[in-house]
């Protein structure tokens, strides 16, 4: 799944650690989501979308498949 998470995070000047702290997950999880290695659960995806005040499809694009 393609995501704009990295762009959204860097626009705000946050480090991966900053974002991890706001989401209540590890920095490894933020990095894995940004690099497309891990697709977040629905609750975490909603949490990310709410944090950036965007609809969920504004952060994640399910059409851009990533083979895991």
């Amino acid at each position: 799944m393609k995501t704009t998470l990295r762009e959204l995070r860097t626009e705000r000047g946050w480090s991966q650690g900053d974002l991890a702290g706001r989401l209540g997950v590890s920095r490894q999880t933020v990095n894995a989501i940004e690099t497309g290695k891990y697709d977040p659960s629905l609750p975490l995806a909603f949490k990310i979308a709410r944090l950036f005040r965007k609809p969920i499809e504004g952060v994640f694009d399910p059409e851009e498949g990533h083979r895991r």
Partner: protein
Amino acid sequence: MTNESGRSCHNPRYILLALGAAAIIVAASFGEKAFERGSAPRIALAVLESLVTVAFIVGPILSIRRLDELQQRIHLIALAIAFAGTGIVVTTFGWLEAAGLPHVDWGLATWPLMTALWAIGFLFANRRYS
């Protein structure tokens, strides 16, 4: 591995508890030799070793609940590898023993084997998501 709350699966407290548990098991295994087989004190020490072992095994498993969703997935993969690997090794050795190879005491060897495979599985899964 630490999440935003600073919670860790290799917290020094866990390491100290594990060392304490190992010390109790070693002391009990030496202490029980002073008593006759089948005597009440020897059985009590064996039960103590068993209880400490249960705590030693269940503690780390319960600590996984405090990790985030990716870290839990990594441990699930690691446990699956440990479970399958232990089954393969024990079953294979069972056949090899039947074919004449020396006997292995799996009562003692299974847990260290499973722990080693868990560690290998953790490294494998952790690398996949790093």
